[in-house]
Protein backbone atom coordinates (compact mmCIF):
# COMPACT_ATOMS: atom_id res chain seq x y z
CA UNK A 1 0.00 0.00 0.00
CA UNK A 2 1.49 3.28 -1.09
CA UNK A 3 0.75 6.07 1.36
CA UNK A 4 1.19 9.82 1.29
CA UNK A 5 4.50 9.48 3.09
CA UNK A 6 5.96 7.40 0.26
CA UNK A 7 5.22 10.19 -2.17
CA UNK A 8 6.57 12.83 0.18
CA UNK A 9 9.80 10.91 0.70
CA UNK A 10 10.16 10.48 -3.06
CA UNK A 11 9.51 14.19 -3.50
CA UNK A 12 12.17 14.99 -0.88
CA UNK A 13 14.71 12.69 -2.54
CA UNK A 14 14.12 14.27 -5.95
CA UNK A 15 14.30 17.75 -4.44
CA UNK A 16 17.57 16.80 -2.76
CA UNK A 17 19.02 15.61 -6.07
CA UNK A 18 18.10 18.96 -7.60
CA UNK A 19 19.53 20.82 -4.62
CA UNK A 20 22.78 18.86 -4.85
CA UNK A 21 22.95 19.81 -8.53
CA UNK A 22 22.39 23.49 -7.82
CA UNK A 23 25.07 23.51 -5.15
CA UNK A 24 27.59 21.40 -7.01
CA UNK A 25 27.42 22.23 -10.73
CA UNK A 26 29.08 25.24 -12.30
CA UNK A 27 27.57 25.10 -15.79
CA UNK A 28 24.59 27.47 -16.06
CA UNK A 29 22.60 25.16 -18.36
CA UNK A 30 22.93 22.31 -15.87
CA UNK A 31 21.90 24.68 -13.09
CA UNK A 32 18.69 25.28 -15.05
CA UNK A 33 18.17 21.52 -15.33
CA UNK A 34 18.62 21.16 -11.57
CA UNK A 35 16.03 23.88 -10.99
CA UNK A 36 13.58 21.97 -13.17
CA UNK A 37 14.18 18.86 -11.08
CA UNK A 38 13.38 20.78 -7.90
CA UNK A 39 10.18 22.23 -9.39
CA UNK A 40 9.06 18.75 -10.46
CA UNK A 41 9.74 17.34 -7.03
CA UNK A 42 7.50 20.03 -5.54
CA UNK A 43 4.82 19.16 -8.13
CA UNK A 44 4.79 15.52 -7.05
CA UNK A 45 4.38 16.59 -3.43
CA UNK A 46 1.48 18.90 -4.23
CA UNK A 47 -0.33 16.33 -6.37
CA UNK A 48 0.11 13.63 -3.71
CA UNK A 49 -1.18 15.81 -0.88
CA UNK A 50 -4.09 16.87 -3.08
CA UNK A 51 -5.03 13.27 -3.72
CA UNK A 52 -4.82 12.10 -0.13
CA UNK A 53 -6.88 15.07 1.05
CA UNK A 54 -9.42 14.56 -1.72
CA UNK A 55 -8.81 18.19 -2.64
CA UNK A 56 -8.02 19.64 -6.06
CA UNK A 57 -6.09 22.65 -4.75
CA UNK A 58 -2.82 20.70 -4.76
CA UNK A 59 -3.19 20.00 -8.47
CA UNK A 60 -4.03 23.65 -9.12
CA UNK A 61 -0.83 24.80 -7.42
CA UNK A 62 1.07 22.24 -9.49
CA UNK A 63 -0.44 23.74 -12.67
CA UNK A 64 0.73 27.21 -11.73
CA UNK A 65 4.17 25.84 -10.89
CA UNK A 66 4.33 24.39 -14.40
CA UNK A 67 3.35 27.79 -15.83
CA UNK A 68 6.06 29.49 -13.76
CA UNK A 69 8.60 26.90 -14.89
CA UNK A 70 7.71 27.49 -18.54
CA UNK A 71 8.15 31.28 -18.19
CA UNK A 72 11.39 30.79 -16.29
CA UNK A 73 12.77 28.64 -19.09
CA UNK A 74 11.80 31.15 -21.77
CA UNK A 75 13.39 34.14 -20.04
CA UNK A 76 16.32 32.26 -18.54
CA UNK A 77 17.31 30.57 -21.76
CA UNK A 78 17.06 33.92 -23.58
CA UNK A 79 19.45 35.49 -21.08
CA UNK A 80 21.73 32.47 -21.30
CA UNK A 81 21.94 32.65 -25.10
CA UNK A 82 22.67 36.37 -24.83
CA UNK A 83 25.41 35.72 -22.25
CA UNK A 84 26.93 33.02 -24.46
CA UNK A 85 26.96 35.39 -27.45
CA UNK A 86 28.69 38.05 -25.34
CA UNK A 87 31.30 35.97 -23.56
CA UNK A 88 31.48 32.62 -25.33
CA UNK A 89 30.99 30.65 -22.15
CA UNK A 90 28.14 29.56 -19.92
CA UNK A 91 30.27 28.88 -16.90
CA UNK A 92 29.05 30.32 -13.64
CA UNK A 93 32.49 31.60 -12.77
CA UNK A 94 32.52 33.84 -15.84
CA UNK A 95 29.92 35.93 -14.02
CA UNK A 96 32.19 36.68 -11.10
CA UNK A 97 32.97 40.28 -11.83
CA UNK A 98 33.92 41.26 -8.32
CA UNK A 99 37.17 39.98 -6.98
CA UNK A 100 37.23 38.98 -3.38
Amino acid at each position, binding site marked *: *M*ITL*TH*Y*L*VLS*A*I*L*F*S*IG*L*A*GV*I*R*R*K*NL*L*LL*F*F*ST*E*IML*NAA*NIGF*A*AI*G*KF*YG*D*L*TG*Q*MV*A*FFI*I*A*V*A*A*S*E*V*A*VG*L*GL*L*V*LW*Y*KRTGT*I*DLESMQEMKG
Partner: protein
Amino acid sequence: MEAIAFYLFSVITIGMFAIVVFSKNALYAMSALAGGMIAISGFFFMLDADFLGAVQIIVYTGAVMALYAFGMMFFDTTKDVKENIKEDKIVNALWISAVVILIVIVSVPFVSDHIMLDASTSDYKVIGANNPQAVGIFLFTKYLVQFELAAVMLLVAMIAGIILVSKKMDISLTTTVEEKIEKEEFDIKDAK
Protein backbone atom coordinates in the same frame (compact mmCIF):
# COMPACT_ATOMS: atom_id res chain seq x y z
CA MET B 1 0.09 -3.32 -8.49
CA GLU B 2 0.28 0.30 -7.39
CA ALA B 3 3.35 -0.51 -5.32
CA ILE B 4 5.11 -2.07 -8.32
CA ALA B 5 4.35 0.96 -10.48
CA PHE B 6 5.42 3.36 -7.71
CA TYR B 7 8.77 1.71 -7.12
CA LEU B 8 9.44 1.24 -10.85
CA PHE B 9 8.78 4.90 -11.60
CA SER B 10 10.74 5.95 -8.50
CA VAL B 11 13.82 4.04 -9.63
CA ILE B 12 13.54 5.42 -13.18
CA THR B 13 13.06 9.00 -12.01
CA ILE B 14 15.79 8.99 -9.38
CA GLY B 15 18.22 7.30 -11.79
CA MET B 16 17.47 9.72 -14.61
CA PHE B 17 17.78 12.77 -12.40
CA ALA B 18 21.01 11.45 -10.89
CA ILE B 19 22.36 11.22 -14.45
CA VAL B 20 21.29 14.85 -15.02
CA VAL B 21 23.10 16.07 -11.94
CA PHE B 22 26.27 14.03 -12.27
CA SER B 23 26.70 13.69 -16.07
CA LYS B 24 29.59 15.43 -17.78
CA ASN B 25 27.87 15.78 -21.14
CA ALA B 26 25.10 18.37 -21.45
CA LEU B 27 23.35 16.41 -24.21
CA TYR B 28 23.10 13.28 -22.05
CA ALA B 29 21.86 15.42 -19.17
CA MET B 30 19.09 16.89 -21.34
CA SER B 31 17.96 13.51 -22.65
CA ALA B 32 17.94 12.06 -19.15
CA LEU B 33 15.92 15.03 -17.91
CA ALA B 34 13.32 14.45 -20.65
CA GLY B 35 13.08 10.78 -19.68
CA GLY B 36 12.69 11.66 -16.02
CA MET B 37 9.89 14.10 -16.84
CA ILE B 38 7.98 11.34 -18.67
CA ALA B 39 8.41 9.04 -15.67
CA ILE B 40 7.12 11.80 -13.37
CA SER B 41 3.92 12.01 -15.41
CA GLY B 42 3.44 8.34 -14.44
CA PHE B 43 3.16 9.44 -10.81
CA PHE B 44 0.51 11.96 -11.75
CA PHE B 45 -1.56 9.28 -13.49
CA MET B 46 -1.21 7.10 -10.39
CA LEU B 47 -2.39 10.01 -8.24
CA ASP B 48 -5.63 10.35 -10.28
CA ALA B 49 -4.35 13.63 -11.70
CA ASP B 50 -4.87 12.64 -15.33
CA PHE B 51 -4.94 16.16 -16.69
CA LEU B 52 -1.80 17.12 -14.78
CA GLY B 53 -0.03 14.07 -16.20
CA ALA B 54 -0.99 15.02 -19.74
CA VAL B 55 0.11 18.61 -19.13
CA GLN B 56 3.39 17.34 -17.72
CA ILE B 57 4.13 15.41 -20.91
CA ILE B 58 2.97 18.19 -23.23
CA VAL B 59 4.50 21.17 -21.45
CA TYR B 60 7.67 19.68 -20.00
CA THR B 61 8.78 17.09 -22.51
CA GLY B 62 7.06 18.83 -25.40
CA ALA B 63 7.73 22.52 -24.86
CA VAL B 64 10.38 23.00 -22.19
CA MET B 65 12.74 20.26 -23.35
CA ALA B 66 12.25 21.32 -26.97
CA LEU B 67 13.18 24.84 -25.90
CA TYR B 68 16.29 23.54 -24.16
CA ALA B 69 17.21 21.49 -27.21
CA PHE B 70 16.76 24.61 -29.32
CA GLY B 71 18.85 26.66 -26.90
CA MET B 72 21.58 24.06 -26.95
CA MET B 73 22.06 24.65 -30.66
CA PHE B 74 23.82 27.84 -29.61
CA PHE B 75 26.15 26.09 -27.19
CA ASP B 76 28.84 23.59 -28.03
CA THR B 77 27.24 20.47 -26.60
CA THR B 78 29.29 17.70 -28.18
CA LYS B 79 32.25 18.45 -25.98
CA ASP B 80 32.24 17.43 -22.36
CA VAL B 81 31.35 20.20 -19.97
CA LYS B 82 34.52 21.50 -18.43
CA GLU B 83 33.76 22.54 -14.92
CA ASN B 84 35.98 23.78 -12.21
CA ILE B 85 34.32 21.77 -9.47
CA LYS B 86 36.36 22.24 -6.39
CA GLU B 87 36.06 19.27 -4.10
CA ASP B 88 35.65 21.50 -1.12
CA LYS B 89 35.05 19.50 2.04
CA ILE B 90 32.85 22.18 3.59
CA VAL B 91 30.60 22.44 0.52
CA ASN B 92 30.30 18.67 0.25
CA ALA B 93 29.46 18.38 3.93
CA LEU B 94 26.90 21.17 3.56
CA TRP B 95 24.99 19.68 0.66
CA ILE B 96 25.06 16.16 2.00
CA SER B 97 23.78 17.31 5.38
CA ALA B 98 21.11 19.46 3.67
CA VAL B 99 19.95 16.38 1.76
CA VAL B 100 19.88 14.21 4.86
CA ILE B 101 18.00 16.82 6.91
CA LEU B 102 15.44 17.32 4.14
CA ILE B 103 14.71 13.60 3.85
CA VAL B 104 14.50 13.23 7.63
CA ILE B 105 12.08 16.15 7.91
CA VAL B 106 9.73 14.65 5.35
CA SER B 107 10.00 11.05 6.51
CA VAL B 108 9.46 11.73 10.21
CA PRO B 109 5.70 10.99 9.86
CA PHE B 110 6.79 7.43 9.01
CA VAL B 111 8.04 7.05 12.56
CA SER B 112 5.62 9.17 14.49
CA ASP B 113 2.22 8.84 12.90
CA HIS B 114 1.03 12.21 14.10
CA ILE B 115 -0.01 13.77 10.83
CA MET B 116 -3.61 12.73 10.39
CA LEU B 117 -5.36 13.55 7.19
CA ASP B 118 -8.75 15.07 7.78
CA ALA B 119 -10.59 15.03 4.51
CA SER B 120 -13.79 16.35 6.07
CA THR B 121 -12.44 19.93 6.24
CA SER B 122 -11.86 20.14 2.51
CA ASP B 123 -14.28 22.25 0.50
CA TYR B 124 -13.09 21.21 -2.91
CA LYS B 125 -13.61 17.53 -3.36
CA VAL B 126 -13.70 15.73 -6.63
CA ILE B 127 -17.34 14.81 -6.69
CA GLY B 128 -18.73 12.86 -9.56
CA ALA B 129 -17.02 14.62 -12.42
CA ASN B 130 -13.83 12.97 -13.57
CA ASN B 131 -10.50 14.70 -13.22
CA PRO B 132 -10.18 16.90 -16.34
CA GLN B 133 -13.73 18.18 -15.90
CA ALA B 134 -13.17 18.92 -12.21
CA VAL B 135 -9.90 20.67 -13.01
CA GLY B 136 -11.63 22.80 -15.61
CA ILE B 137 -14.43 23.73 -13.22
CA PHE B 138 -12.02 24.83 -10.48
CA LEU B 139 -9.63 26.55 -12.86
CA PHE B 140 -12.36 28.75 -14.31
CA THR B 141 -14.20 29.52 -11.08
CA LYS B 142 -12.07 29.66 -7.96
CA TYR B 143 -8.73 30.10 -9.70
CA LEU B 144 -9.80 32.38 -12.55
CA VAL B 145 -7.72 35.38 -11.42
CA GLN B 146 -4.59 33.26 -10.96
CA PHE B 147 -5.24 31.67 -14.34
CA GLU B 148 -5.39 35.05 -16.05
CA LEU B 149 -2.28 36.22 -14.21
CA ALA B 150 -0.44 33.09 -15.35
CA ALA B 151 -1.55 33.82 -18.91
CA VAL B 152 -0.20 37.40 -18.72
CA MET B 153 3.04 36.11 -17.18
CA LEU B 154 3.50 33.61 -20.01
CA LEU B 155 2.88 36.37 -22.56
CA VAL B 156 5.50 38.59 -20.90
CA ALA B 157 7.95 35.68 -20.80
CA MET B 158 7.35 34.93 -24.47
CA ILE B 159 8.00 38.54 -25.50
CA ALA B 160 11.09 38.66 -23.27
CA GLY B 161 12.43 35.47 -24.83
CA ILE B 162 11.87 36.75 -28.36
CA ILE B 163 13.51 40.11 -27.64
CA LEU B 164 16.48 38.62 -25.81
CA VAL B 165 17.39 35.99 -28.36
CA SER B 166 16.47 37.58 -31.66
CA LYS B 167 18.08 40.99 -31.07
CA LYS B 168 20.94 41.67 -33.50
CA MET B 169 20.58 38.28 -35.12
CA ASP B 170 22.05 39.63 -38.35
CA ILE B 171 25.37 40.26 -36.63
CA SER B 172 27.44 37.38 -35.35
CA LEU B 173 27.94 38.17 -31.71
CA THR B 174 30.02 35.08 -31.05
CA THR B 175 33.00 36.32 -32.99
CA THR B 176 32.81 40.03 -32.28
CA VAL B 177 33.50 41.74 -29.02
CA GLU B 178 31.20 44.26 -27.48
CA GLU B 179 32.96 47.48 -28.58
CA LYS B 180 32.99 46.30 -32.14
CA ILE B 181 29.26 45.67 -32.04
CA GLU B 182 28.65 49.16 -30.74
CA LYS B 183 30.89 50.54 -33.47
CA GLU B 184 28.94 48.61 -36.09
CA GLU B 185 25.73 50.02 -34.71
CA PHE B 186 27.15 53.51 -35.13
CA ASP B 187 28.17 52.66 -38.68
CA ILE B 188 24.66 51.48 -39.46
CA LYS B 189 23.22 54.69 -38.02
CA ASP B 190 25.71 56.76 -40.03
CA ALA B 191 24.82 54.92 -43.19
CA LYS B 192 21.18 55.78 -42.64
